[in-house]
């Protein structure tokens, strides 16, 4: 087993939640890298969809935006936003909605709009984009984000995109079309999933070498852990190599994380 960073394993693990043949609606940021990785490894037949209107491109490394021409390569159609957000997503034809998160609360709700008071925010974030649409309509919701306490508050300051809102049947009560989606959050410390009984996130897997205490320390709400505790599968050398080839200049795989690589590798030895 060679060296890898927890950031790299986070991306690889997130990709593992995409199955071959899935229609995946991919948001900006790390989801672009993870879905490209899935397409190059175990899910060659996934249908990559981005909101600019591209359907089923064979993505070239390294797309930096949902409108990057590298995301258009060999698409079967380059259409409109309505084609993909309307006729695929709202129409109910998307298996996986894949988002990066700004703030995620205990019910899996996402805030990408504002920190603090919405009307006069301390920090204004980019906003909703297609994220609310993706979270409303995809059958499975997949979120990838760095695990920091500020990103995991008890309740989001603003719910941009619905998770389970406020409980196990929260989505059904407000009339969302997909009432009980699977919802998985992959971080550099753990994999969190919604417990159907409570509608709240719980730890389903830990990253290798990471303890529940560390995850709890970096999470703003109390976590329960599924038993027995499972660990995320360590990546193969080939997986790590493939991922690095997809981001040779470090667009997503950050230098800080590369420094951590040796540290983490030593921990593993």
């Amino acid at each position: 087993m060679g060296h890898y960073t927890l950031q790299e394993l986070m991306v690889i693990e997130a990709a593992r939640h995409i199955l071959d043949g899935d229609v995946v609606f991919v948001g900006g940021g790390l989801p672009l890298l993870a879905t490209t990785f899935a397409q190059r490894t175990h899910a060659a037949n996934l249908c990559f969809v981005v909101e600019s209107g591209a359907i089923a491109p064979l993505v070239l490394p390294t797309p930096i935006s949902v409108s990057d021409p590298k995301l258009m390569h060999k698409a079967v159609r380059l259409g409109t936003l309505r084609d993909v957000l309307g006729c695929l997503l709202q129409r109910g034809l998307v298996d996986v909605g894949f988002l990066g998160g700004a703030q995620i609360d205990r019910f899996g709700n996402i805030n990408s709009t504002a920190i603090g008071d919405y009307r006069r925010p301390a920090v204004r974030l980019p906003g909703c984009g297609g994220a609310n649409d993706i979270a409303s309509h995809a059958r499975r919701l997949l979120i990838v984000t760095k695990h920091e306490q500020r990103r995991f508050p008890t309740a989001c300051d603003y719910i941009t995109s619905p998770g389970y809102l406020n409980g196990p049947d929260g989505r059904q009560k407000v009339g969302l079309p997909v009432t009980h989606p699977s919802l998985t959050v992959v971080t550099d410390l753990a994999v969190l999933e919604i417990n159907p009984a409570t509608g709240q996130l719980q730890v389903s897997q830990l990253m290798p070498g990471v303890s529940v205490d560390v995850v709890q320390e970096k999470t703003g709400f109390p976590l329960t852990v599924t038993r027995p505790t499972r660990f995320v599968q360590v990546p193969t050398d080939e997986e790590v190599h493939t991922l690095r080839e997809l981001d040779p200049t470090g667009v997503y795989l950050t230098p800080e994380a590369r420094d951590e690589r040796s540290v983490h590798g030593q921990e593993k030895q």
Partner: protein
Amino acid sequence: MTLRDAIARFVGRGSSIGLGGQNIGRVPVGPVHEIIRQGHRDLVLYGCNLSISMDLLVGAGLVRRCESGTGNLERFGTTFCWRRAIESGSIEVEDYSHLAMVSRFLAGEMGVPFMPIKSLLGSDILNHCSRTDFKKFELIANPWKNDDIVVLVPAVTPDVSIIHVQKADAMGNVIIEGFATHEPEMVRASQHTIVTCEEVLDTDEIRNDPERTTIAFPHVSAVVHQPWGAYPTSTYRYYDYDADEIRRYQAAARVGGDAYRRYLHEYVYECPTFDQYLAKVCPPGRREELELSMRSVL
């Protein structure tokens, strides 16, 4: 028609403007520079994934209100002028999702007052509205199905839409190559549309291949030949985005204040035309690189 004439004719104080492009693709930067030079104030902007276009207009102090899905430049950071303006309360912002915005344009282009959607339910997008005299949405019970709540979003019909495309003819027929984002719906919903293009085609070419036409002339008011009109963002099949120039913009936008005023002065006000801006920042060698970069991903 020149870009200067087209902007002077169709944009004025208080205009509502639909902005085309998406993030780092086909953003109508050329027309936006001209709006800034002409100084049309109190603008209302509509769009989906808006980046440099919106940020430039907000940074130049010309915008009163934005209704869009998002403002950002993804890996290049956020739209800093827009963000500061919201944080300081100097512009109004109305947040919708992208599907909500494109549905509003769809209502506009169909000539109906609203469109039903099934997004936004349960979110704070339905809990906050920028002003009391604007009805952001309505919830209704689906008349054809029990226990089904539907969100109605109001039509948008901008005074003028502005897009940069690959090809158009003098008559006003438009060919968009590659992704078209929200542009077809937005343009057909608008009272007027200004199109800048990389190439002007003869109308015979349009008539020989009519299925290639994305938007037909009744929806278009002015066509202006402006090669590289989306620079530093990309135009599919023509040129890639210029990361260095986007970073130059972001460096000024991030800091704001004098640094941003100097940017506007040097790259917008002091360049009487967009071609002069291009000559200043994107020499022929750089253009070849960006053309090659685009061809390599086709």
